């Protein structure tokens, strides 16, 4: 039987501690839309998305009301568009415009999957799609793009790494009058998950069913509040508190996913056990680390604290959900986290420290604004470093950096909404990596890949 304390605790989490479901994401296969004529292909894509996802947003809103839990985003992820471009040929931007039109028709916040998987090399359609990414992101609002350039099994495709450095820079240049937003919608992955509900990196992998519902939970504010009530306990107890809180958060995600899948008549895929911050006060992963006893996120001890947080979130969440997937872990997107923004402004959080942090948490160098004059090869080198961490540690890593075209360290970009804002972070080493990047080829898969 429910008791008053539990009921009021749930309400407090939602009202005061920003507990929410971050996203319900419908994964949708577009493989059956492939056609040798690009216009016919686009028409089929539009029809399939608007048919399958027609009730996604109203159903999400109904669940929000019934259960009293905010669901911040309703999103769609689709089959990597490079696969369709391979069949149809033609200008892939047409697909981006189709996705944009479809996303507006069904009212979702984002649609992901303007993607290519090139970790071992380029197939038909891949290079064309990558070349079109900057224009696609500049000419659409809701479309998100990702490219997987490496994996533990395949190694790192350094030709793709070189291309992506140029692509990130170009995406920022084409949107320089709009806070370089193009680069904020583009993720470069190593070990990209095929069932990730979070943007900008969501796409619907080819091993997935035709249509599926994935859920991403959130709740850094709840974890921080739970720790604040126990200011003097030791770290074993801290880990326990995080586990218990993560369990409760994830159970809610499981409930929402189950109900959404029933109402939509679509199978339930996974819950992504995530701690996803927002720029709102009290919804910060950095503040959890600070609650653990760090003066500011980014100081010595940050990596250890984050490692423990990330692990405890997974341990607490895994029992609460029937299927776990996606990125699962703590996110550290700088511009989307009030505590990270503050630490970046004061100079206590550096890109070098963030790189170390990505070795122990869920994603990678995420939503980091870098000087606009950073060369494409340096961006490629940042991508290569990050991909190497993912490849060797058999984990997902990603790079989403935003070159602030025409701006210098100290200035800020303002994306608005969940993408937040943040200062330009200096790169402390401006020496060239050009020769290394321009060699091309592949970094061979590490010993860790030989598990059979």
């Amino acid at each position, binding site marked *: 039987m429910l008791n008053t304390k*539990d009921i*009021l605790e749930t309400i407090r989490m939602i009202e005061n501690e920003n507990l929410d479901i971050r996203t319900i994401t419908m994964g949708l296969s577009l493989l059956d839309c492939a056609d040798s004529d690009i216009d016919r292909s686009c028409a089929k894509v539009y029809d399939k998305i608007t048919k399958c996802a027609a009730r996604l947003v109203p159903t999400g809103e109904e669940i929000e009301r019934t259960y009293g839990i905010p669901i911040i985003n309703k999103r769609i992820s689709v089959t990597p568009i490079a696969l369709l471009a391979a069949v149809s040929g033609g200008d892939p931007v047409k697909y981006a415009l189709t996705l944009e039109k479809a996303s507006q028709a069904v009212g979702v916040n984002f649609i992901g999957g303007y993607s290519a998987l090139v970790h071992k090399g380029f197939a038909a359609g891949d290079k064309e799609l990558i070349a079109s990414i900057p224009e696609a992101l500049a000419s659409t609002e809701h479309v998100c793009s990702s490219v997987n350039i490496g994996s533990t099994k395949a190694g790192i495709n350094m030709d793709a790494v070189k291309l992506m450095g140029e692509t990130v820079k170009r995406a920022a240049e084409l949107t320089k009058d709009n806070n370089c937003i193009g680069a904020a919608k583009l993720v470069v992955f190593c070990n990209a998950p095929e069932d990730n509900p979070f943007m900008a990196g969501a796409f619907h992998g080819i091993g997935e069913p035709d249509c599926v519902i994935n859920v991403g939970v959130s709740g850094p504010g709840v974890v921080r509040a739970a720790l604040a009530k126990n200011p003097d306990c030791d770290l074993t107890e801290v880990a326990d508190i995080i586990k218990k809180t993560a369990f409760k958060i994830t159970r*809610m995600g499981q409930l929402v996913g189950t109900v959404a899948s029933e109402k939509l008549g679509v199978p339930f895929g996974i819950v992504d056990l995530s701690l996803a911050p927002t720029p709102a006060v009290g919804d910060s992963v950095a503040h959890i680390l600070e609650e653990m006893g760090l003066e500011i996120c980014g100081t010595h001890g940050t990596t250890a604290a984050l490692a423990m947080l990330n692990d405890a979130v997974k341990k607490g969440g895994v029992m609460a959900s029937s299927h776990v997937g996606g990125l699962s872990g703590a996110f550290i997107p700088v511009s989307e986290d009030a505590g990270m923004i503050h630490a970046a402004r004061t100079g206590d959080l550096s890109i070098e420290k963030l790189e170390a942090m990505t070795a122990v948490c869920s994603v990678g160098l995420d939503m980091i604004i870098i000087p606009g004059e950073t060369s494409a090869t340096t961006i490629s080198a940042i991508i290569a470093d990050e991909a190497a961490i993912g490849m060797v540690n058999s984990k997902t890593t990603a790079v989403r950096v935003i070159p602030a075209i025409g701006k210098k360290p100290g200035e800020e970009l303002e994306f608005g909404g969940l993408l937040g804002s943040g200062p330009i972070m200096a790169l402390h080493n401006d020496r060239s990596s050009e020769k290394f990047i321009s060699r091309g080829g592949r970094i061979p898969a590490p010993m860790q890949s030989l598990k059979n």
Partner: protein
Amino acid sequence: MKAIITVVGRDTVGILAKVSAVCSDNNANIIDVTQSVLKDIFTMVMLVDISDLVSDFTDLQNALYALGDKIGMKIHVMHEDIFNSMHHI
């Protein structure tokens, strides 16, 4: 199907009566009520059966939210499953 209604705010006369009246208007059967007053702060948790509502669940919610605004109390109406899933294994 059951829902939980919570009412929190400064204690005044007739809160229980007003909330009950809205439930009755919508044919929501009150199964259990618990309330406490701590330093003038009134907290009430009510379990109601909403299987035979004369209206939509949304209408009951809207009526209670409107009442909450009128009498200056914070009212929540939520399906009981969210609490069950969060607090029971």
